[in-house]
């Protein structure tokens, strides 16, 4: 079997596995739904997720130890991950293949020439990592921004929130679609845009943008094994560029950092065995440096240093915290949350009620595409007996809760339930409070026992003067867990008359409105 056939099989296998793990990341009764599948696996394999969160938190979340394996393989063999495993890479390769099909070989060869702008990705990586590494003593915890361009979170987010739902595979309830995702147009456009750009330049994302590729390139640039070109047999015909995925100039001197080990150059070389694989260095010369100029590096570092104070400047994780952002159960306090979340969308895909949504641009770049509850979209707020999101989260931005811990019972008795926020009645919109009409759907559907919503009895008058017995809802902040079921059910269909904000959320003691002893009840 030819090596490129083996590579194609590997790519197909990992791509299908990736798509499958996206598909099964759903809680439900369908045979295919989450039954211990390692749905986080591709994210856990991703060294940029591991390195980024280690830089911000100084700790490696256990599942991310898989990334150590990727790092070791890369140190020994180079960018195998990019050429053989990465599902986003496979999509680019396929799109690029379609894009160049039938074009004149001269143009194709030219499009696969090494381009100096390929160094841009090292600058992007440096800026991201410097931003993640700024010591907490200087500015507080750094926010992690790698997830915006890291290919695994990017493709995972795109599949979870756009590709599968658009294909009608979005539902937690079966192959029936029916899921909604805010922000899907932007997320989908970014994804589709990068895929379509392969028609202009093959693997444009991989070559020019990908910060993970840049990280792997640096890790693998001194790999003891790699592509070897024997100069004496080479006629410099350039055919090796015909299908070169990395634009690494195989005929030599090879740009080691750019080589994705696609091995297409083996196939395309018309002479016998000038290009092979083996112990390095390649005899036709090697360029192992990523080539980022000192000026470019300094600019990246400065940009990275500026990112942290810049993204904290809004105060959105301090006094100006956004009470409109209700985080999922088990989410850690906002500063640590933003140090961990990679915006992969796993929690939003797995959430059985669809209540978890990506935050939009209007809430700030620093929280873009992080998970928030939207009780109008969800089928029924956040379900009391569900902790799925924490188990889908690869980085610990959402902790893995037991049900006892979530509900403050059993072994967690005395610690209080996890509160996502607090429901508040808008008395100007509430039917019994403002319009003399009976209702109390919110009280009925409140899942807490005893209920967090009680009623005040009142006597009202209907428009034609008939006395009406009214029950007016009142929220007890010491009982409300902010699940949002009441908000979802409120008959005021547009702007609900009872709405949950993150006030009183238990993940940050500074947001509590309860006195200490009440908090533990």
């Amino acid at each position, binding site marked *: 079997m030819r090596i490129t056939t083996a590579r194609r099989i590997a790519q197909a296998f990992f791509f299908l596995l990736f798509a499958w793990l996206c598909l099964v990341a759903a809680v439900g009764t369908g045979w295919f739904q989450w039954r211990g599948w390692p749905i986080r696996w591709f994210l856990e394999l991703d060294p940029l997720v591991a390195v980024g969160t*280690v830089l911000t*938190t*100084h*700790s*490696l*979340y*256990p599942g991310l*130890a898989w990334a*150590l394996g990727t*790092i*070791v393989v890369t*140190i*020994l063999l180079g960018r195998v991950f990019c050429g053989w495993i990465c599902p986003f890479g496979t999509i680019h390769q396929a799109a690029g293949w379609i894009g160049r099909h039938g074009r004149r070989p001269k143009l194709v060869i030219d499009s696969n020439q090494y381009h100096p702008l390929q160094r841009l990705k090292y600058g992007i990586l440096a800026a991201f990592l410097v931003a993640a590494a700024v010591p*907490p003593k200087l500015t*507080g*915890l750094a926010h992690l921004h790698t997830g915006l361009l890291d290919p695994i979170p990017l493709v995972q987010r795109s599949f979870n929130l756009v590709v599968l739902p658009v294909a009608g595979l979005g539902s937690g309830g079966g192959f029936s679609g029916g899921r909604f995702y805010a922000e899907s147009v932007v997320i989908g456009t970014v994804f589709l845009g990068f895929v379509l750009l392969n028609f202009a330049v093959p693997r444009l994302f991989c070559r020019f943008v990908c910060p993970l590729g840049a990280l792997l390139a640096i*890790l693998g640039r*001194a*790999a*003891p094994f790699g592509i070897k070109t*024997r*100069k*004496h047999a*080479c*006629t*410099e015909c350039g055919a090796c560029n015909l299908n070169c995925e990395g634009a690494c100039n195989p*005929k*030599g*001197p090879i740009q080691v950092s750019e080589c994705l080990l696609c091995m297409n150059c083996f196939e395309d070389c018309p002479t016998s065995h000038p290009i092979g694989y083996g*112990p*390095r*260095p390649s*005899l*036709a*010369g090697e360029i192992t440096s990523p080539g980022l100029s000192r000026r470019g590096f300094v600019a990246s570092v400065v940009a990275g240093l500026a990112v942290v104070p810049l993204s904290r400047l809004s105060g959105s994780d301090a006094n100006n915290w956004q009470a409109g952002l209700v985080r999922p159960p088990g989410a*850690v*306090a906002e*500063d*640590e949350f933003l*140090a*961990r979340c990679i915006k992969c969308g796993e929690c939003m895909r797995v959430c059985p009620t669809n209540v978890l949504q990506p935050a939009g641009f209007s809430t700030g770049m620093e929280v873009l595409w992080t998970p928030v509850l939207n009780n109008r979209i969800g089928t029924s707020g956040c379900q009391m007996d569900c902790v799925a999101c924490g188990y889908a989260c690869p980085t*610990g*931005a*959402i*902790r893995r809760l037991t049900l006892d811990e979530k509900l403050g019972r059993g072994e967690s008795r005395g610690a209080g339930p996890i509160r996502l926020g607090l429901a508040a009645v808008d008395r100007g919109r509430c039917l019994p409070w403002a319009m003399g009409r009976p209702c109390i759907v919110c009280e009925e559907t409140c899942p807490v026992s005893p209920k967090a919503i009680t009623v005040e009895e009142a006597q009202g008058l209907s428009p034609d003067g008939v006395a009406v017995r009214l029950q007016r809802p009142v929220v007890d902040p010491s009982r409300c867990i902010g699940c949002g079921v009441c908000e979802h059910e409120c008959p005021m269909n547009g702007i609900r008359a009872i709405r949950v904000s993150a006030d009183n959320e238990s*993940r940050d*003691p*500074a947001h*509590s*409105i*309860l*006195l*200490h*002893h009440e908090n533990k009840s």
Partner: protein
Amino acid sequence: MKPETSGPDPAPPSRREFLRRAVQAGAGVAVTAALGAWLLDRRPPGTIGRIAAVDARRSFGPKGAGPTLSIITGRARRQMLRRGLAAVGGIERFIARGDRVLIKVNAAFASPAALAATTHPDVAAELVTLCLAAGAASVIVTDNPINDPESCFELTGIGPAVRAAGGRLFVPRADSFHPGTVEGSRLIRDWPVLHSPFAGVTKLIGTAPVKHHHRAGASMTLKNWYGLLGGRRNQFHQDIDGIVSELARMVTPTFVVLDGAQSMMSNGPTGGSLADLKETRTLVVSTDPVAADAYGATLLGKTHRDLPYLAAAAALGAGTVDFESLRPVRAAAEEEG
């Protein structure tokens, strides 16, 4: 440089180079494994950035017995203060050579001294002067105000007066607070408490004006300790008597000065008009803040029963509401000519 297209490859330096790279890669793998093992779940989610609470008790009670309460009538605050201190044993009874003194004033609002919503600059400055004269090594004046801190200290006149008297002003910043717990407290648990100005401090003086307060009934020397709290402290207004009494137990001052030269009778605690004030011409010096406030209540036409936090503070061992039992020294200050 144009690469050669024919002829044998140059003699391979490649074996040595390959070995070098192999060793380098091996080292890289070892470092990766070691770092991974060391970092693995070092700080589980939810544990980052959380600082353990320290003991929030602030105990600076005076040593030795002696009169604990003096009630001085007069008009000029400096004289009243000196007379009041003399009546309870003089400043030397409380401040020794080398003491580092912290004075907690009430600088809550950025309003002029004439409105008596804040500690009068004369009282703050005279306390600084007396402490320094008694040999104090340093005198720091602080508060965590409600209005903008810099504006509060400047517009009340406290800042300029303290600096002129040789004291140091401490304007709190975000990092001046540390989570603190008072053992046995229901409310002050893992709560940000003013911390850094207390470093090295050996004596604590509290001073506040007598003011009407809509939620607490009155704001005097005990309510003044509210200014040692940081964070979103206003949630304690849900249990004002609870928090003031627990503050009384948290803080044991060396002595307190309650300034009733004028009392804010209405529209408190901000006031804002001279019409809110009444000349009550009294100043209290006491080692027992509960007794001081119980007396202060009378200046507002109330008794300690109108202020439930006083009895609660007394029950927590912070003092007595029966100020007469302390046999207060009553005197008139000499009026300045």
